[in-house]
């Protein structure tokens, strides 16, 4: 990665006394990136990029609302949405089927899809920086398979009520994610430190163990039921009801904000822990914060959407190629791009074979994979320099 290449040069150059915020940008500048606008992060560039992406997000959201088994035109959508805002959700029943479809199914699903995509991409950025590994994604820490195992157990036992507006499966998935977080943390923690390699390996091993347990549960389940479970695991964006959506929004937003507050430190952390420490970063505190936040976020995301691969790993890379490695912009920009990407993928998933659906993970990999290969080919060496 470019960051690592720059790191060596930076360490050699001995500019240890830089103010924190500028380190990442100086590193990028040190690489001699041809595009000047990539190397320096001004607040103006931050604002323009974010505004552009936010605008794009809004457009994609509005476009996604249009498509589905029942076509609902923009004018109708707008009328239904404003009607609902004015009269509240109670008046829905009288509004006819297309308003129910729009308000109860499509809108919540669009919002959920965007949030899940954002969250996966943001966590991907955080973990790639924390683990200094370009292959890191939200599933690398074992939290996601813990969550998946929780969901599998919930489906096997078939018990449950709704908890905190979340369905039993989601709740158990979240519990599963939470417990595996504790396990990974306990395994990795040594003398109050959180060594990156142990953390990564603990995650990988836990992933393997949990996957094996899930496969075991699937193999013992009646085939008719395991089919449903596999479908859930393949990635599902259902239409949550609004209380669940609100709980989730608050949760994910707070988590995202905490991650965003670490981006300055993450910039410095990419130089290596020693350098970061000498630059005055509380390395362990940052690492733990990013780890816990990422784990809690990915656990929650998996619990509502199953395993949607690809977004968390590739979106950060794609965005990094386009706007540069400074995490202060990279993280929020990736979040928006991830949201747009997953939203577009989910719209395709629910319309291509309508009235049936395709698991959204299939679309994310099939659409995103070739695009990423194209990026790699067209900027050869850009990623692996």
């Amino acid at each position: 990665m470019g960051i690592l290449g720059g790191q060596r040069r930076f360490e050699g150059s001995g500019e240890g006394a830089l103010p924190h915020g500028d380190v990442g940008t100086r590193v990028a500048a040190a690489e001699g990136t041809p595009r000047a606008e990539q190397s320096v992060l001004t607040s103006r560039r931050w604002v323009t990029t974010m505004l552009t992406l936010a605008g794009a997000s809004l457009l994609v959201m509005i476009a996604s609302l249009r498509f589905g088994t029942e076509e609902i035109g923009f004018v109708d959508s707008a009328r239904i949405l404003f009607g609902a805002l004015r009269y509240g959700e109670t008046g829905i029943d009288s509004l006819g089927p297309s308003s129910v479809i729009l308000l109860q199914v499509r809108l919540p699903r669009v919002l959920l899809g965007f949030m899940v995509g954002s969250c996966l991409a943001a966590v991907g950025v955080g973990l790639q920086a924390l683990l200094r590994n370009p292959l890191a994604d939200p599933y690398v820490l074992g939290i996601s398979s813990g969550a998946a195992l929780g969901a599998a157990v919930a489906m096997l036992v078939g018990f449950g009520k709704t908890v905190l507006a979340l369905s039993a499966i989601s709740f158990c998935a979240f519990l599963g994610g939470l417990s595996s977080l504790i396990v990974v943390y306990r395994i990795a923690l040594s003398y109050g430190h959180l060594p990156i390699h142990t953390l990564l390996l603990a995650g990988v091993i836990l992933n393997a163990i949990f996957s094996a347990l899930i496969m075991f549960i699937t193999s013992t389940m009646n085939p008719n039921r395991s089919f449903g479970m596999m479908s859930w695991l393949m990635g599902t964006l259902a239409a949550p009801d609004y209380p669940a959506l609100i709980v989730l929004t608050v949760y994910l937003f707070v988590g995202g904000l905490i991650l965003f507050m670490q981006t300055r430190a993450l910039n410095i952390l990419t130089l290596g822990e020693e350098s970061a420490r000498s630059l005055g970063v509380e390395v362990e505190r940052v690492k733990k914060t990013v780890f816990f936040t990422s784990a809690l976020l990915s656990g929650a995301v998996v619990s509502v959407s199953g395993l949607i691969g690809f977004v968390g790993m590739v979106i950060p890379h794609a965005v990094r190629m386009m706007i540069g490695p400074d995490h202060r912009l990279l993280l929020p920009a990736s979040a928006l791009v991830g949201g747009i990407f997953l939203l577009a993928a989910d719209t395709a998933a629910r319309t291509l074979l309508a009235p049936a659906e395709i698991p959204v993970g299939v679309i994310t990999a099939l659409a995103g994979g070739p695009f990423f290969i194209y990026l790699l080919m067209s900027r050869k060496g850009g990623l692996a320099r």
Partner: protein
Amino acid sequence: MKRRQQGILTGMPFMANLAPRTFVDDLDRKIYLAKAPIRIVSLAPSITEVLYAIGSSEELVGVTQYCDYPPEARLKPKVGYTHPNLESIMALQPDLVLAPREFLRADFLGKLEQLKIPAFILDAKTIEDVLSHIQTLGRMLGRSASADGLAAQMRQRITEIKTRTATLPHPRLLYVLNSEPLITVGPGSFIHQLIVLAGGTNIARRARSAYPRLNMEEVLKEDPELIVFPVGLVEGIPESEQQVWQRWTTLSAVKRGRFFRISSDLVNRPGPRIVEGLEIFARIIHPEAFEDKIKP
């Protein structure tokens, strides 16, 4: 199921009767059985039920772990289901293995052929297939009389349901195979046929696969008048997931509280009890047509 005349002198009517011991399965494989098999392994609950129903339970030496009907089938040695254990099958020294088309792996079948264990593959796609399977197994096992009787009786019950529901409207029905994500049955599935036969309209009739993940928007658009959940000991939709459906208040089925449960074993297994499943479906869809009959 395809039934062919066998033998080189097929054209001669009397010869057809001389070679009745060759059978063609649903993969178009021919097996020759010199005499009726006496050690049979069944690799599907439905096949086990057929064997019990036609009186061949004595010959049944191995079953799957899901073979739970009739209850005494549980006592037979188990050989696995989706991944049958070849060694346990070998140990039972069967002279016939009856296997369903689902989960059948080519290497497993090849191994059986290599070991000279006759395997007969059954692939029931329609109710008619079930009846013909029962009759084929009857001929194969020397139980033609009881098998033909059973098939005739089943056929008669099916006809009665058809006549009772023929003139009635066809209400829209959603069958919830799995709730999260929503998976239902489409054309090409067994249950879809049962719904149609019982005089209902499957709201996923336009889906292109047998077990589609159905979009919730489509459900709201189609507005099912009935929602049916499969229930069973080891599978089926838990109560809590059924309650989740209450939130779709605009659906006719929710407004009128028309949620129904059906034993998944009765409708999923292409065996003799499929007619019971069909009757329950018909009673759910058209209670008015069965008012004169006492509930079973």
